């Protein structure tokens, strides 16, 4: 994948502790901005939590600087760095920023064009505004976990850190939108995103579905009570099959895999039936499915029914996938890095 240069010339100062802040810097850096990240070598205020693998990816192409926080001229040093900075990205708490003279009011006058990008967990108002947040607590609070696990068992989280990652992306969106506005108005401003608001945005599909539906139909409003969906287990992998609304093909496919009794079952030969009972198919076909090798099943589903079938891949297999290689998403080297998946011309 070619090195992207959409944001060349833009300079970013990142002072962050969490994933969201680091992700914002990562996105801007991947898109061509110059990102300087302030860190402390000690266990001080900016200490990155542990040596979590995530930061090896998120901070890979940033210029990391280690100012001495204890030094008398620390503030002066940092203020100097601010000259020529377009975006200041931070997820520190307001009080710490204020103590360092880095709250927006401290910088607004001396750096009128600065776009001050503030990332919080729960938002800047309300009873939890000063509380720490975590990926898990926001996933739970926003309802993202309601459609996983069994409804009478312990909760299950989404295995990707989609809230933190997308909060970082949202912060980059806000900074870039403010940059476009600055281009017209010649004024900087403070922009703000939160993990909670981002999680609510990610939940829009389910939120709109519950507005006032004519009937409680559709998986957004019914699937909370379904059992966990592990897909079909064939001889060598778990997999998911989609016949793209071609409900007439399901009875044929069921017959072909060795379940003629299900093919004749009204639960599985109409779209109304499949909408409700489709999730029962993996259990009901289990005995026959395990006789099928994925490759044979794939051929059948694709060629005969024009359907789509994909295996459940583990994370190593995804990285080795020829399509990921084709997209050029991994920059090889001693420390391979994941880059922004986009091609430009």
């Amino acid at each position, binding site marked *: 994948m070619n090195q992207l240069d959409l944001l060349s010339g833009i300079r970013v100062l990142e002072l962050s502790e969490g994933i969201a802040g680091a992700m914002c810097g990562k996105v801007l850096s991947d898109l061509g901005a110059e990102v300087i990240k302030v860190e402390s070598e000690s266990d001080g205020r900016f200490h990155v939590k542990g040596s979590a*693998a995530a930061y090896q990816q998120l901070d890979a192409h940033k210029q990391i600087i280690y100012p001495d926080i204890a030094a008398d001229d620390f503030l002066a040093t940092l203020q100097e760095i601010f000259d020529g900075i377009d975006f200041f990205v931070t997820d520190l708490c307001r009080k710490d920023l204020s103590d360092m003279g880095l709250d927006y009011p401290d910088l607004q006058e001396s750096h009128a064009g600065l776009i001050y990008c503030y990332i919080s967990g729960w938002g*800047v108002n309300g009873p939890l*505004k000063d509380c720490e947040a975590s990926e898990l607590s926001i996933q739970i609070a926003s309802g993202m976990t309601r459609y996983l696990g069994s409804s009478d068992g312990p909760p299950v989280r989404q295995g990707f850190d*989609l809230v933190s990652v997308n909060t970082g992306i949202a912060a980059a969106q806000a900074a870039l939108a403010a940059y476009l506005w600055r281009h017209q108005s010649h*004024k900087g401003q403070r922009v703000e995103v939160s993990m909670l608001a981002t999680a609510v945005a990610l*939940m829009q599909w389910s939120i709109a579905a519950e507005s006032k539906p004519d009937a409680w139909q559709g998986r957004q409003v019914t699937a*909370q009570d379904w059992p*966990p969906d592990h897909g079909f287990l064939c001889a060598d992998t778990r997999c*998911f099959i989609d016949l793209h609304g071609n409900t007439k093909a399901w009875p044929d496919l069921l017959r072909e895999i060795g379940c003629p009794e299900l093919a004749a079952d009204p639960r599985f030969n109409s779209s109304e039936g499949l909408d409700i009972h489709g999730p029962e198919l993996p259990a009901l076909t289990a005995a026959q499915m395990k006789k099928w090798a994925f490759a044979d099943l794939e051929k059948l589903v694709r060629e005969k029914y024009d359907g789509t079938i994909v295996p*459940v891949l583990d994370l190593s297999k995804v990285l080795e996938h020829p399509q990921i290689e084709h997209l050029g998403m991994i920059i090889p080297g001693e420390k391979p890095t994941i880059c922004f998946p986009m091609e430009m011309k």
Partner: protein
Amino acid sequence: MSSKQLKSARQGPLDGLLVLDFGQAAVGPIAAEYLGMLGATVIKVESPRGDMVRQGSPLMKGTGTTFIGNNLGKFGMVLDLKSSEDLEKAKNLIRIADVLIENFRSSDVMVRLGLGYDVLKDINPDLVYVSSSAYGSGGPLENMRSNEWLSEALSGFASVTGAEDGAGEISRGTANLDWNGAMMNTVVILAALVRRANGKSGCYCATSQFGSSVYGGITRFAEVLAGQSPGRPLGTASTWMAPDEAFQTLDGYIAVSAPTQQCWLNLIRVLGLDSLQDDPRFSTNHARVNARVALCARLSERFSRETSAEWHERLIAAHVPCAVVHRSKSLLEMLDGHPQIAATGALCRIASPYGPVASQAPHWTFSRSPAAIPAAPPLLGEHASIVDANLHDKQALIHALKRARVQSQDQLSTEAV
């Protein structure tokens, strides 16, 4: 809002930009919707049959809530791109547009329609053209179809999601990877607009749902690239922080995390387990991750003694990240009842011909160029005559569409009264 108010209102950062949404379903339309919240004027271009999710369940007064929720604030027109007359109209519209986004399965669809970037860049060199396909151009999966659940399986999401030591699972009723893809498309468009503002021409940007899904999992793929195992379902637990999971209480579950050492110390104080402070197995986050089972046994015993609400109150007072797992209420009841969502205004209701629509509010706050809660989604072809009458003048078109919006909103609020 009266037209006078409209004029004096502070405007979003993308005010004055014209966006054409040739998308369907999710990743394209949602990105266009976000641009609308940022102040752009967004025209949804549909085929005579309309976006396929107009018919998808659940419905509100006969229209799919997926369509409603993904197309707020847009203006609607219909073009049959297989007719030469409408194709010409599309080109005229593209000539004055700033952004075009499409999310056909393959980018070849627009090429076949005669609207590939090679054609359009001659019509409008300043156009930002985003093609958001399923798997990208070329490669073994090029023409395969995609949706949320296929993405969750193929991107590895399902392999690290599920009950601890159970089989991986997909999310049954959310489409967060689709939304993640839309978030990616949005940042791409904004970056391309920034490039253009800095004196370059427009450009063509190709994203893919597969690529975006993997990028969305970057923190987990980082573990593999750092030499760790590929991960497995862990219930609510995480691989790099402990505690960071849900505990059973007297009446349900509460999720608790300790992202800093101070949070850990505060947590054990609240639980009355101060002695753990001196236990070398639990002295650092790294140690706690390695001793997670023993750690959770100690914490679980305490959590089981009281209700989730009681623990929540004390943990919040001690600044420990936590959230109560609510199961009995519907999603909307749960969100509406969350004091933080109420206080931050993250959720809103939008008047529409289908009734009030629950929606996210804009997920950014701007101190000087505020984003706006969007208006109702368009009826199929609702604004076609306005577009037809202003095909050659962007500013006139934007102005005429905004005027129509004010009128229809006045009408909706009158009906509501």
